[in-house]
Every structure is written in structure tokens, then in C-alpha cells.
């Protein structure tokens, strides 16, 4: 089976989607230009800035580094799946300025909020290290995250010495 495009079925933000993708299309391109989900941004295009972060089967990944054909049969969630009311602390703490990094930052932050056990082995800054922000100096982001975790009653003290 050798073709220029393949037909894949995937679940995106809870909806089953069938789409023909070529060998050259990245998940990020499909989301933005085929499906109109333009919340995920392209910053660096090499997996460094994290602005394109989406969940693949629940795990944050760089959608700029994923060939679209690899999401067949899998579950993709984008920033469009995050309810605005989940963002209260991010707005209040000045965790965003220009906003270019924010979709990715929010995706990784919400993943940590959903998996607070990660803080038993990792510090917040290590978990957030894949999302670069050139405006906030990160403190606003970390404050928002700390506040959200505390409000959820899952604010375990980040492990000392593990923070990077």
C-alpha cells in the first residue's frame, strides 16, 4: 500500500473525523488549515517553543512534529476543547501578555492540573519547560498554576531540588 495520501479516522475534540492526509502534512497543519482549529500556533516548527501543544491520547505533544497519518485511531484534543471558565487563575495572574504561547501553555498547565500526582516526582517548572514564553518571565504562569492546584486541593509541595 503506497499512496500519496491516506484516509484516516481520528477523534478530534470528541468528534470522530475522517480525513485524507498526505505524507507531508503535519498534525498542526491539518488542525489549522483543514479543520479551522487555529488556536494551536506554530512558533518554532521544531518542538522547542510548545505553542502548538495538543493532547494525543491525553498526553501533551508538539503537533508540529507529528505526521498527520500517525493520529489514525487516536484521540486528539486542542485548546478549543478547554472551557473558558477553566482559565480563571490564568487571567487573574497575568499569565499571558502577547498570547502567542498561551494556547500551548494552557494545554500543558491543564494537563498538570488533571494529573497532580506528577508533582510527586517533578517540579512545575520542569513540567512547563516545553512551553517558552517571551513576555511573562514565567512567574505569572507558575503563580496561576499554583493557585489552580491549591483551589483544587491538589497543591502538593513541588519536590525541592527537582525544579529546573
Amino acid at each position, binding site marked *: *500500500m*503506497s*499512496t*500519496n495520501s*491516506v484516509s484516516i479516522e481520528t477523534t478530534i475534540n470528541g468528534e470522530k473525523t475522517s480525513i485524507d492526509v*498526505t*505524507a*507531508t502534512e*503535519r498534525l498542526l497543519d491539518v488542525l489549522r488549515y483543514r479543520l479551522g482549529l487555529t488556536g494551536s500556533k506554530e512558533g518554532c*516548527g*521544531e*518542538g*522547542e517553543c*510548545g505553542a502548538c*501543544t495538543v493532547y*494525543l491520547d491525553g*498526553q*501533551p*505533544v*508538539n503537533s*508540529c*512534529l*507529528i*505526521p498527520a*497519518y*500517525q493520529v*489514525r*485511531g487516536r484521540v486528539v484534543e486542542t485548546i478549543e476543547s478547554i472551557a473558558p471558565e477553566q482559565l480563571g487563575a490564568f487571567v487573574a495572574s497575568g499569565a499571558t501578555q502577547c498570547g502567542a504561547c498561551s494556547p500551548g501553555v494552557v494545554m*500543558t498547565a491543564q494537563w498538570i492540573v488533571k494529573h497532580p500526582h506528577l508533582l510527586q516526582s517533578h517540579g512545575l517548572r*520542569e*513540567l512547563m*519547560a*516545553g*512551553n*517558552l514564553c517571551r513576555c511573562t518571565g514565567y512567574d505569572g504562569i507558575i503563580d496561576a498554576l499554583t493557585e489552580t492546584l491549591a483551589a483544587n486541593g491538589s497543591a502538593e509541595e513541588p519536590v525541592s531540588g527537582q525544579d*529546573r
Partner: protein
Amino acid sequence: MTILLPGTLTDAYRMLSDDPDVTPVAGGTDLFAHWPENRVKQSTTYLDLSGLAELRSMRWTKSELVLGALTTYWDVVTDARVAAEFPNLVTAARQVGAVQIQARGTWAGNIVNASPAADGVPVLLAYDATVRLGSRDGVEDIPLDEFYLDYKKMRRRPDQLVTEIRIPRRTYQRAWFEKVGPRKSQAITKVGVAVTVAGETWRIAANSVAPTVCRCPALERYCAAVAGAKGQPLTSPSDLLPAIRSDVSPIDDIRSTAEYREQVLARILFHALNDAGV
């Protein structure tokens, strides 16, 4: 530009033997970086491994930890048993990119991408890992230490696929891994080193200091002799430089200089040995 989607490992072997110019894709983190520029330079046929259940598992046998070809860094980071028995694997995995890359990058992909700066490879070398290659003709096991021939050259035939990385289970008294980069995350290594000590046997492997990630046999002998009180005790990092210079051949490039790499490697090892009371 075409894509092959094998349903089974047998299909994949057939596709690889039919066309010698196929590039296998696992997590894609190396192949897809700078994709618009890179894709014109690359092989026009890709073989997607992501659907092959046979390559996915990480498992334990009585004598080995076996990483399937699709085992990611994150699989290892989140496995308490690996952390207990092979702590260097977790230490190294946590310093690859950040969580998004760790979730996608595979140990096998790191080996066959063959970067001299590969962060997964020094720790695998220091644990005496073996690469298992599969093809239509059968299985071949090659010690990772003998896998690389030169810069980006390795003992994998075009019709072969890395299916497993096999790591022998031993009792180690010590294991260190140190990565030096411009920052702690999202960085490519300037110099890195993994060390294990099992009884009197030392394994030292370094990256970014030679055309391939490599074992350092002169350093291994030197450190084992010092530790066994058969050599002169170490007084300064420069005591290690003759052995370092016989083992590695760093260069000046955009990330660092040869001199910095030698000096830092010496200092990392000196302090590690001091901490260990050697």
C-alpha cells in the same frame, strides 16, 4: 513522497526489503523538525512504525529489561521499576527536550538518528545495551558499543529495523549521568557523560565529543585503577585529560569548543569520582 502503513511487523519487513530507500518513522521528533525545509532533502518514502503493536511494549525478563522500538522517554520516566533498577535511564530521559518531546521521542529512534549528541545513547552504552535488528532474514543482536561505525554510519542494513533494545540486569554500585547544555531543558548537549560501576567494572560513555556517541575505554581503565587503589590518587581534573584525549576527539562547532568539552568532561568526572570517595 509516499507513506507506507504496515499492519504487522512482517509487512514492515517486506516493505523494507522491497525498497532500500525507505525511512522508518517512529515518534518523528527528529525527522519532522524544520519539516518544510527538510522534507525536500529526505527520502521520498516513509514507513510508519506507530501502528505496530509488536514494537510497543517495555518488558522485563529474568536477565534483561527490554525496550520495544516504540518505547518513549516518557514511558521510562513514569516507570518506578526502571527508576529503581536503571536510574540513569530516567535521569537522561528527563533531560531530553521537555515533556512534549519525551512523550514522542523513542530510545530506538535516538539510536538510529545517530546524532553524536544523542542523549539516550550514553546511558544505554554505560548499561551495556544490545540492539536487536529484525528483518525478513531473521534477528541479529549487535552490542550498542559496536553499532556505530562513523558519523551517522551504523551497522543497520536498509532492510533491517531496530525492534528492541536489551539491557542486562546487573547490580550497580553507582550510576551517574551528567548533561551540560546551554540550559536545563530544550537544549542540545555540549558534552555529556554516563558512568556505571558494577563491582570493579567501570563503564563510561560520552556524547558530543566524537563523531559518534562512544565508550571511553582508557577512562574506564584509569578510573577502575584509581578506584581499586592501583593507580595514583586523583589530585585535579587535569589528571584525567590524557585518558580523555585518547578516548574522544571533540571539535569546535556552533555549540561549543573542543577545549571546553575536554575540560568540562574532566571536571564532571573528577567531581563525580570525588563524591564517590574515589
